[in-house]
């Protein structure tokens, strides 16, 4: 895991001091809210419906046990005993007091964490594949490159006043588990013609009000030139991006309006000069950073495990967990475990302080002290010995963290919606909860196979509804909550935006309508087809019929 150097430490500490002073001046009335707001946003502090909200960065979603315990400590001491993991691999606290924020940031700094650039018009926390360094289909571990991007982008003077926020995601495998084409820039590690590491680059993806799927701008940027190329993209957008209209300021709008070809020309102009400057990533520096992400000291183990296989036979609940939440590992005898934060009827992404401690302990004992935050609002124990999986599972189950629904229908992504968020039109959590209760039967969910259901409480799309296989968007109709349904979105290497199926539904109709959609799929699917495959084959019409069938009958 990457360790802070003296510069990182000094920078974060200085920021805590500075912000403590700003908070003190705000509390005394010396600063007005208008003066204070940009300062608090630079430190991840929003003001929401009921309280301040603090968003903490988890660089590329990687945490140690010590960091996770500290997140738990903060939840227990300064919040209401829980935290909320987001689709951006951050954690949010919903109830901190203004006057506690300096203490919280100081607690975070102790464990090399902070909230810098988790808000505002800057380069946000770079995200990656939650199985980075563990997946068996990986060409190369993307995390060192995320770290290089982190160092380059943190408080970068040229990029401190961008037209809008900017999000980068990196993957190291052909399979996209980080939704890179919904990011401003998506990077995929490939091998160049010479066999050297290079990056396939997508640009102009994003969700929100005007969703776009990222387009390929370069097929193989040499690794040493990655920062030059990224700088060229940001510079082109910084110079040409619209600042007159907040909704048109994102790079996706620029790319769409110029065309990818014209935007590529702009970028190439800057790249031609930048790539020969000191932006080249020195090989020894890249190697030094890679060393922090060296594989942990795995044991040489056989591919199969007696204790694992025996537990599969002995306990159907364990077998189910093994089927749905255990992922293949590149190292024989190991696996990655998805820790579901989606219990039946729960709030997607919520975890209590005590649960954080449990997961931290398990990571320390069984996963080389490593934890990951997944964009699906779950956690992952990346490197667990197969022999230990039954033990870990029992401990997770005791803590209410072993719901065997990873990637199944109740693994719902949902933003906080109108229960917390001041921008929302409608609630999303209660709708997700109703759906979760309705589809709770795991036999049914397994019969359905993988289905990605995503909900957002407004068009900002924090819940990724555009790229859900089924998407749910809260809209306001004269003070009433209504929900628009989309079908056919996809966040992965076949990224697509869903089609809106028809008029929006009242809250209590959403879960039944989704269940009818899923039932329709079971009726019409071909052998071996996943839900999304069937949607792609037959289009949205059969699902539209299913969604509106009862409604039409009563209309």
């Amino acid at each position, binding site marked *: 895991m990457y360790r802070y150097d003296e510069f990182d430490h000094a920078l974060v500490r200085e920021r805590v001091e500075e912000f403590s002073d700003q908070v003190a001046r705000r509390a005394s009335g010396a600063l007005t809210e208008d003066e204070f707001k940009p300062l608090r946003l630079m430190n991840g502090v929003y*003001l929401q419906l009921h309280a301040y909200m603090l968003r903490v960065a988890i660089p590329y979603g990687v945490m140690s046990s010590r960091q996770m315990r500290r997140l738990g400590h903060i939840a227990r001491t300064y919040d209401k005993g*829980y935290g909320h993991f987001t689709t951006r691999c951050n954690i949010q606290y919903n109830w901190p*007091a203004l006057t506690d924020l300096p203490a919280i940031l100081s607690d975070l700094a102790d464990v090399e964490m902070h909230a810098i650039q988790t808000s505002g018009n800057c380069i946000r926390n770079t995200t990656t594949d939650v199985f980075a360094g563990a997946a068996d289909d990986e060409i190369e571990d993307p995390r060192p490159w995320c770290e290089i991007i982190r160092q380059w982008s943190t408080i970068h003077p040229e990029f401190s006043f961008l037209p809008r926020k900017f999000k980068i995601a990196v993957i190291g495998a052909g399979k996209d588990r980080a939704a890179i084409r919904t990011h401003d820039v998506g990077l995929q590690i490939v091998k160049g013609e010479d066999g050297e590491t290079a990056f396939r680059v997508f640009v102009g993806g994003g969700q929100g009000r005007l969703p776009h799927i990222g387009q390929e701008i370069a097929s193989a940027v040499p690794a040493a030139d990655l920062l030059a190329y990224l700088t060229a993209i940001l510079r082109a957008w910084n110079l040409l991006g619209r600042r007159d209209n907040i909704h048109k300021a994102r790079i996706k709008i620029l790319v769409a309006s110029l065309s990818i070809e014209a935007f590529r020309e702009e970028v190439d102009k800057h790249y031609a000069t930048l790539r020969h400057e000191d932006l080249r990533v020195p090989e020894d520096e890249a190697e030094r950073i890679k060393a922090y992400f060296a594989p942990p000291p795995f044991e040489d183990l056989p591919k199969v495990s007696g204790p694992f296989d025996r537990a599969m036979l002995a306990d159907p609940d364990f077998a189910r967990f093994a089927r749905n939440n255990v992922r293949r590992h590149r190292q024989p005898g190991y696996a990655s475990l998805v820790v579901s934060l989606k*219990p039946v009827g729960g*709030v997607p992404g919520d*975890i209590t302080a005590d649960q954080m401690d449990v997961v931290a302990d398990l990571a320390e004992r069984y996963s080389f002290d490593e934890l990951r935050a997944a964009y699906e609002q779950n956690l992952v124990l990346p490197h667990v010995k197969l022999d230990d999986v039954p033990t870990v599972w029992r401990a997770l189950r005791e803590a209410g963290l072993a719901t065997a629904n990873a990637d199944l229908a109740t693994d719902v992504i949902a933003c906080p919606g*109108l229960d917390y968020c001041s921008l929302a039109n409608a609630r999303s959590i209660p709708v997700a909860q109703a759906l979760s209760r309705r589809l709770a039967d795991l036999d049914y969910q397994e019969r359905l196979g993988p289905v990605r259901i995503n909900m957002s409480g407004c068009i900002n799309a924090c819940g990724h509804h555009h790229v859900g296989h089924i998407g749910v968007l809260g809209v306001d109709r004269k003070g009433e909550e209504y929900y628009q349904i989309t079908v056919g979105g996809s966040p992965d290497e076949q990224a697509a935006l869903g089609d809106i199926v028809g008029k929006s539904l009242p809250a209590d109709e959403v879960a039944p309508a989704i269940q009818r959609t899923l039932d329709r799929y079971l009726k019409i699917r071909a052998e071996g087809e996943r839900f999304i495959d069937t949607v792609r084959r037959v289009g949205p019409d059969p699902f539209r019929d299913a969604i509106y069938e009862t409604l039409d009958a009563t209309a």
Partner: protein
Amino acid sequence: MKIVTANRLSDGRVIYAGAGNQPVEQLAQASVLDEATAEIVLADVAGRPDVFVNPYLFDVQDRTPSGRDRLKERIRSAGPTVGHSVVGGVG
């Protein structure tokens, strides 16, 4: 009729302008004002940024939030409508 609301500076909690334009926590204690008075109270609390952050008005009928922000103000006054993942929930 209207009520003046804001977030409290110290902890961000929802507050209302009550008797004497003092901050109160319960919607039930908020002053219900006619249009003209509401504007005056709003201006008054806006002048106290050490307590009232982002003050604004919303419509009520019989003290119940109405109009465009009906749902939002109901949730602001009563708290989130959901618990969290732990059975029993918290505050």
